[in-house]
């Protein structure tokens, strides 16, 4: 039981009468990659937003390390060890790549307005430390050569990597990724998959929302499938590939009948 990092219990989300998510349960254990998949509009991003504290669930509870997250303000999630990236990138375009990643250190540092303005010892030490850590993560994701470039001048694929560095620099226990492969080409996706495995090897668990099945099947330890706001399946990649409900959700029931018919015939 202590192995469970994130425990999602029967969460629902209602957007003004539209049931986006209903009664979804699953958990994420330490050091594993869980993928959340499903057709468009299945409620995957909504689930991720609820887990990262961006929107509160209408019903149900989310526990992180056995702590109820309902009343924790969004700005404290990073300090507790949950960080995320965004499907439509949320980068700080007018800052350099290095500065972007240094913002990620915010939850691990304390110096306030006065300390920063007067450059007191604490602020100075933290600044050096942040600089060092951010460079380290830029090295890991392979962006150290563009550290001093403005983020706004970077191509899409690099910005995705930068968002990961920014989320990882605070060394979270759980990393939430919203479609990290969106807009990436084949090689970039393969690189990204390797990156996820490296992050897992480092001890950070990942919850991944993704459409790219190559990445999901290759990286995920377990998969949770949503359809129209409900969980319809959960299991290992092999189990999910076989699951008739999942195939039905993705292809529609009629086609499944046809493929079945063919395989029988």
């Amino acid at each position, binding site marked *: 039981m202590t192995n469970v990092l994130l425990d999602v219990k029967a969460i629902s989300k209602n957007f003004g009468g539209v049931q986006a998510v209903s009664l979804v349960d699953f958990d994420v254990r330490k050091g594993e990659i869980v993928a959340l998949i499903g057709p468009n509009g299945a409620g995957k991003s909504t689930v991720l937003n609820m887990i990262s504290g961006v929107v509160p669930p209408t019903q149900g509870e989310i526990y992180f390390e056995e702590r109820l997250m309902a009343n924790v303000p969004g700005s*404290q*999630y990073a300090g507790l060890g949950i960080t995320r990236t965004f499907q439509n990138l949320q*980068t700080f375009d007018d*800052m350099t790549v290095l500065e972007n990643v240094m*913002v990620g250190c*915010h939850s691990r540092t304390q110096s306030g307005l006065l300390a920063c303005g007067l450059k007191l010892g604490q602020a100075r030490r933290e600044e050096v430390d942040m600089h060092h850590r951010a460079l380290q993560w830029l090295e890991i994701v392979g962006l150290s050569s563009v550290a001093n470039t403005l983020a706004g001048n970077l191509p899409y694929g690099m910005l995705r990597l930068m968002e990961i560095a920014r989320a990882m620099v605070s060394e979270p226990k759980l990393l939430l990724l919203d479609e990290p492969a969106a807009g990436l080409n084949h090689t970039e996706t393969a690189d990204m998959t390797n990156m996820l495995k490296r992050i897992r090897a480092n001890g950070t668990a990942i919850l991944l929302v993704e459409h790219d099945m190559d990445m999901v099947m290759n990286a995920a330890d377990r998969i949770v499938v949503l359809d129209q706001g409900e969980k319809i399946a959960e299991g290992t990649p092999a189990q999910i590939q076989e699951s008739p409900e999942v195939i039905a959700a993705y292809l529609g029931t009629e086609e499944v009948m046809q493929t079945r018919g063919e395989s029988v015939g």
Partner: protein
Amino acid sequence: MRSIVKKLGIGFIFYLLLVIIFPFLLSNEYYLSVGIVIGLHAIVTVGLCLLMGLAGQISIGQAAFWGIGAYTSAVLSTKYGLPPAIGLLASAIIPGIFAFLLARAIAGLQGYYLAMATLAFGYIVQIGLTEWESVTGGANGMISIPKLQYFGDSELSMYYLIWAVVTCVLIFSLNILKSRVGRAFRAIHKSEIAATTMGIDVRQAKLGAFVLSGMFAGISGGLYAHYMGILDPQPFGLHESIKFITMVVVGGMTSIWGALVGTVLIDSINEMLILLSEYIPGLQGDVDTIVFGAILVFIIMFMPEGLVPRCRAFYEKVKAKKRKAAGSQQAERKTVA
């Protein structure tokens, strides 16, 4: 020597030299008073630049904090006989408290709504200063506010005192810019959601930016009161707030040096208009408002990033081109050899 230059940066040394020798370049009471006014305005605009350019929170009521600061110090030292030093301290703290309360009340507002709320605040303060006659002297204002005499009571000593404060405010703000707090300000400007997920308390960051800019404006106000010696509510209204915004926008909102450059530019234009109005009869009245409005529109249309960032980008471009040219020349030489 070289290490000092490196540590402070050539720009900063140039600034210091300019500030120090300015009174000797144009040694004339009039120019000195212009220098003092520019310094007073610069303290406000540097703070406004932190609030608007970095944290992305617009304030059309900055002159109100300036006014609160001015009256705080004036009332304390004139009516209650406290030494101006205490008055000046209070003129930083009281506007800071006002900024804190205002920011707490309106922290959830964005864009137009925030602009409207700060505009309303500006009006309320100006009306308050005018109507609270028993304390502020109402529309007639206050007279015989004691001068600051820390380095003698000459205009020159006042000039150096004020520019010493400007320099402190500038260093403080430049430190903030390149720090955790400054990055948090810039982060909430771009994306509040992303900032929150990085662990930045958006509300607290906004409060910090408002309080800091309010305090800077207050300090400037206190100095203004003691410099002028007389005070009335007229300069602390919308007109002045817009002028502060124009200064910040012209210089470049994202640059603290920009706020300084914008202040120098706008105040110089202002003085020039006054000089010209003596020769050209049509220039009397509120011509400055029209001119500043036109400048603001021009800058927003053709140079939205402002003067300093534009010049910096141009400089970088020229440098890159030169480097490229030098590189290709070298390459040519190599191939020839």
